[in-house]
């Protein structure tokens, strides 16, 4: 692994001529790496009296922490919610392909599935460090089945569940052992949810509120029990109402535990959230915004029909919706509130196919925020959500050297994990 005995003897890499947009402690100027970690060059200079063994010129490009995707259901034809014989290869394929999107760590996400699927799949996706083989797996995100029927979205109704009297035991019976699980999305209005939230939290599992009809009070209570995340804000929850803001109201609630930051996922693909809504959320609570892709198996493939767990999905351009719903023959004009994003007549979006770097660029353009903020939303904030900010999502000294090299328009030019080049754009290869 990284660090350890041989670290002091390991080669020192100095990345020069780069712009580090990271207004925090640690790096200012060149990025130094040794033994897979970011190194403090001043310490190296005065204590070890050493210079770099190798210098790499970044061509004046931007250097940022690697992106972290905490909600991704599959991609490139791989569906994490399918109980195939070789789940590992599917995860490995996605892990390798998302390197080109600048993602260095991710949480493979399983949508609502029958228990057999969880029992078969979950043990096959262990936490794993990233490297040339692909982005690191931080743990699984189990989205459902303990969610609201009304707000199930594209999740199959037949497999939804609620907690019985032995709430946490029900959860264990459904999912199996939780060793590989990092995040669980559930609806807090379900009975016995609070004991489940507390139990999951004490086990270090992040509880996220989503696919729910909870009002603000219920959501606040869930946060007091331990919930720290909101799954794809605005989508699959009650809309904001000025007398009961619902889950959305958590962004500005004054009834949360002191010092606790509530994080919220945002799918900034240009489809799931109107840019004005994105801006409202960002302006209300910029520190909690976490960019997620919610990518489905169709990511990286063309238009057409694909699966998502037990559901069929139709992809058209950058939009994915539940297949089989008859499109409105009269087209958008017959829609009372013309939603430009659902021109096919169905309102049930079904995940997204926008890669993470596309989401970052769209987020930057839609909110007009600083480049630093956009990059933090895809790196630092998800790391903070998972309590990993000392080693991931940051360019602080001692952190894992997972970073991306970006051009001025935030297109990924190169991806590094543990200081090793794991992906490079064609143009940059010359």
């Amino acid at each position, binding site marked *: 692994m990284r660090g350890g005995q041989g670290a002091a003897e390991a080669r020192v890499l100095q990345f020069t001529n780069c712009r580090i947009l990271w207004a925090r402690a640690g790096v200012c*100027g*060149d990025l130094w790496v040794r033994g897979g970690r970011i190194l403090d*060059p*001043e*310490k*190296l*200079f*005065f204590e*070890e*009296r*050493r*210079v770099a063994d190798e210098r790499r010129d970044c061509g004046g490009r931007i250097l940022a922490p690697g992106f972290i995707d905490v909600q991704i259901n599959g991609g490139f034809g791989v569906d994490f919610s399918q109980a195939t014989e070789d789940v590992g290869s599917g995860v490995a394929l996605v892990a390798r392909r998302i390197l080109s999107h600048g993602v260095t760590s991710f949480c493979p996400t399983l949508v609502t599935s029958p228990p057999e699927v969880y029992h078969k799949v979950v043990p096959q996706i262990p936490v794993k460090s990233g490297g040339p083989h692909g982005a690191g797996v931080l743990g699984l995100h189990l989205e459902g089945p303990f969610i609201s029927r009304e707000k199930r979205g594209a999740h199959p109704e037949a497999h939804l569940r609620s907690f019985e009297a032995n709430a946490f035991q029900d959860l264990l019976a459904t999912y199996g052992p939780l060793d590989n699980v990092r995040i669980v999305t559930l609806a807090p209005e379900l009975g016995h949810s609070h004991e489940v939230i507390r139990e999951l939290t004490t086990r270090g599992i992040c509880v996220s509120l989503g696919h729910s009809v909870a009002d603000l009070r219920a959501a606040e209570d869930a946060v007091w029990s331990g919930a720290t995340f909101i799954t794809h804000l605005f989508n699959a929850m009650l809309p904001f109402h000025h007398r009961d803001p619902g889950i959305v109201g958590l962004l500005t609630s004054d009834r949360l535990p002191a010092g606790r930051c509530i994080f919220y996922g945002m799918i900034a693909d240009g489809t799931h959230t109107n840019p004005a809504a994105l801006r409202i959320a960002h302006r209300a609570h910029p520190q909690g915004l976490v960019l997620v892709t919610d990518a489905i198996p169709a990511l990286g493939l063309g238009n057409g029909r694909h699966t998502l767990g037990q559901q069929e999905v139709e992809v058209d351009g950058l939009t994915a919706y539940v297949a089989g719903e008859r499109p409105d023959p009269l087209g958008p004009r017959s829609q009372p509130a013309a939603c430009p994003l659902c021109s096919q007549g169905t309102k049930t979006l079904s995940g997204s196919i926008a890669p993470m770097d596309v989401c970052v660029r769209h987020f930057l353009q839609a909110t007009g925020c600083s480049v630093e903020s956009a990059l933090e939303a895809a790196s630092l904030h998800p790391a903070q959500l998972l309590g990993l900010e000392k080693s991931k999502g940051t360019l602080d000294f001692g952190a894992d050297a997972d970073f991306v090299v970006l051009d001025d328009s935030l297109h990924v030019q190169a991806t590094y994990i543990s200081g090793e080049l794991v992906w490079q754009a064609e143009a940059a290869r010359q």
Partner: protein
Amino acid sequence: MKLIILDHYSQASEWAAKYIRNRIIQFNPGPEKYFTLGLPTGSTPLGCYKKLIEYYKNGDLSFKYVKTFNMDEYVGLPRDHPESYHSFMWNNFFKHIDIHPENTYILDGNAADLQAECDAFEEKIKAAGGIELFVGGIGPDGHIAFNEPGSSLVSRTRVKTLAMDTILANARFFDGELTKVPTMALTVGVGTVMDAREVMILITGAHKAFALYKAIEEGVNHMWTVSAFQQHPRTVFVCDEDATLELKVKTVKYFKAPPQVNRKGCIYSTNFGM
């Protein structure tokens, strides 16, 4: 001595940096012959350091065969404290140039035996063949390095207690809190700097004007330790207009006179052909 008067801080910084650059280039250092440079800290030399970094980045100057000896360091301040002189040198100079860490020497204010550390520093200077050019600044109380008023003019590297004037002047680097400012420092002695083959003192700003007056128009006096350099064979004072405010008009006119009047055989005229 030579007194070089430039209009503004930026020009004074540039003149000083060019002087250092040219001296190094003319010396033609190599693996058997290092150029030994004494260096200061503080706000005065910042402009000069920026220019030197620029010359390195342009390819006009390399510090590969340069050895640097800093004048001083606080006692008891952690090396990685943002206000330590180690941090200052790293952030403002070393990290931007091609100097090898083994060729940099800064006193260790956290050494177990402070006087032994000071003695060892003197030995290191001797081992390096003495200082070719010592660059320094001046405190508002006329001190060179931390040789506070009352310091022996033949002193060597040692521990010094800082004067109130110095602590007050440094408080701005410690959030204005006097209690946070270190009260002791390790410093090269007046004698140590006098041993250098050449000395260049940078003095800019009106708040240094009185000290400059005391240093060059009054006598040699241990209350204004920079005055010791009146007895050094090769000293250059580089200042801006504001720093000359307390000098006699006659002094300023003399040193600002055109080259043919007083620059006999000297290649350091005000426009120095650069």
